[in-house]
């Protein structure tokens, strides 16, 4: 009757074997990680190289990390306060678009690889997931690809965290500014059709947009959220067109942004204001819209006369092989330049770097850059495709801002 019960002896032996194997593997992993060059500055990051987040990370974040490291090492390395230079050595992990993986990878970078600096992952959720860890281990956290209205709260909670992309309210206020001007000029009516992707980004923006637009006296005629997996927008475009609104706003991700564009073209839906979410500022958008991106609006934008930015775009294309997007890329790159300059001023002490980032003034591709309460505010909130460039149009009172050109010309 031995087969009935569990054989304790055999099972425990097997368990012990498993544990021994596990600890051996652990030991092996430890040994491998500690064998690193001593004179290099180690910089680690975990990024989504597979899974659903890979698309976003591969557009906005990873290329800029690679570009920056490439450039720094080409210059001979990071310059320290004493003038010496040390090359960067990168340790990168794939977080597989999983929150648990990204947390563990950062723990590994901090406590196992003991890297000098850690660069953040892609996405609002993942940046928040690693924020407590970065703070606990004292790493300055340059949250680049994260849009949040709660940055003030986060800075209070984690004073070594820095936020570079603003929040939903920033973007919607800027948009409302553009819309009010167009309405006052008689270009558009009072009605707005708005859709958003049902996920953190879409909700944050649409939640900020509702009160902002209503305060500005706009009537929201259509307001729906769609699941991120949506690929067909025929019905949504039909319904939005049916409302007679002159303004169409979509807080969308790239696949939706592209599909909305194609569907609007097919349906000859041509509202005076056609504002889309992430992806409209991607270089590939030119192909997707069949070269008809003129007048399309979105988040971000650049000042076409800014030589620094133009130069950055050229370098990105030369090193990475494709152009950066017109929104997040330059912000991420600027955050890395700030990091580099902070190190040059105060060395590799993490607390000192954080303090310098918080208080110092830096020369970046954005021009002279200074953080306000650990947040980058010097951002272009709204942009518009004009003559083949995604030009920044808001805030309109800042130097370099273009003029929004409305109504949008018809699709051909």
């Amino acid at each position, binding site marked *: *009757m*031995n*087969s*009935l019960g569990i054989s304790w002896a055999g099972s425990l032996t097997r368990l012990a074997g498993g544990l021994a194997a596990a600890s051996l593997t652990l030991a092996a992993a430890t040994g491998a990680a500690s064998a690193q060059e001593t004179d290099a500055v180690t910089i680690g990051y975990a990024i989504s190289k597979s899974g659903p987040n890979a698309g976003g990370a591969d557009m906005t974040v990873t290329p800029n990390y690679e570009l920056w490291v490439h450039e720094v090492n080409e210059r001979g390395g990071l310059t320290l306060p004493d003038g010496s230079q040390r090359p960067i050595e990168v340790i990168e992990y794939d977080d597989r678009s999983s929150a648990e993986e990204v947390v563990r990878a950062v723990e590994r970078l901090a406590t196992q690889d003991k890297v000098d600096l850690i660069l953040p992952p892609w996405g609002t959720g993942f940046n928040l997931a690693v924020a407590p860890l970065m703070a606990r281990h004292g790493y300055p956290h340059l949250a680049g690809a994260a849009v949040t209205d709660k940055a003030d709260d986060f800075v209070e909670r984690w004073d070594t965290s820095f936020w570079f992309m603003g929040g939903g309210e920033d973007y919607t206020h800027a948009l409302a500014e553009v819309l009010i001007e167009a309405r006052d000029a008689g270009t558009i009516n009072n009605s707005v059709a708005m859709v958003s992707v049902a996920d953190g980004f879409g909700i944050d923006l649409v939640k900020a947009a509702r009160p902002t637009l209503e305060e500005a006296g706009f009537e929201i005629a259509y307001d729906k959220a769609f699941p991120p997996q949506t690929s067909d927008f025929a019905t949504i475009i039909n319904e939005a067109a049916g409302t007679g609104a002159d303004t169409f706003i979509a807080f969308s991700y790239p696949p939706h942004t592209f599909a909305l564009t194609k569907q609007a073209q097919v349906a000859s839906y041509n509202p005076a204001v056609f504002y889309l979410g992430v992806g409209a500022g991607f270089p590939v958008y030119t192909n997707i819209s069949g070269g008809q991106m003129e007048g399309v609006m979105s988040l971000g934008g650049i000042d076409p006369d800014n030589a620094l930015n133009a130069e950055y775009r050229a370098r990105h294309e030369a090193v990475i092989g494709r152009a950066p997007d017109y929104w997040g890329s330059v912000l991420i790159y600027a955050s890395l330049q700030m990091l580099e300059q902070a190190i040059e001023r105060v060395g590799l002490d993490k607390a000192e770097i954080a303090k310098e980032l918080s208080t110092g003034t830096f020369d970046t591709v954005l021009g002279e850059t200074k953080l306000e309460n650990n947040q980058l505010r010097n951002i272009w909130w709204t942009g518009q495709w004009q003559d083949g460039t995604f030009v920044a149009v808001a805030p309109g009172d800042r130097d370099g801002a273009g003029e929004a050109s409305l109504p949008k010309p018809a699709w051909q």
Partner: protein
Amino acid sequence: MNGRLEITGLKKRFGGLTAVNGVSFAVEPGEVIGLLGPNGSGKTTVMNMVSGALRADAGSIRFDGVELTRLKPNKIAKHGVARTFQLVRPLPTLSVAENVLLSFAFGRKRHWGREAQMLVEEKLEFVGLGGRGGEEVGNLTYIDQKRMELARALASEPKLLLLDEWLAGLNPSELRIGIDLVRHLQGLGMSVLLVEHIMEAVRALCSRCVVMSAGEVIASGESEAVLKAPQVISAYLGDDHA
């Protein structure tokens, strides 16, 4: 009322086909009764309704004073009705002993632990598988699998045993062993409802028979008399022979 099976007006339809149409008969306590009929006459369907594998469309099945008609197979087993299957169905991942133990554990009286193990050995002994409890069922010969299945049915300590062609496929010497086993059960006071094609066995075991054809009972009574009845012969062999 002790251990009497009473079937009245039992009906079952499958789609447009009426498989069992108003069957009534009874099995008295301690009696071995044969349920006969050509293939497709509805015998196994009756068995399935008694054991709960199928639900009757109409009619009633009472056993030991309890209405079984709407009960699930596990409840029916707990009321003291056990069965074997037309094709042997051993549980392949369980050892021979575990196959039998299962019925003790969930049968009428729920035995478990050391006591149950002894009971299992006893039952295996009874069917002629003594000492072979540790073997894999897959390795048993056909007759031994049949023995194991009988032991498994007996292990739920039934008052009524349903044997569905349990003797089919045995060679003459095995058949003799099988018949002796069933007779032994009768000696223990158990009622047995036997679906069987082997007339030799029916004659040897059953005092009474019920013969079905096309879903209806066409004859019942003393075995010898029933087996000679013209309607029975014609049902088996076709009208030409009547």
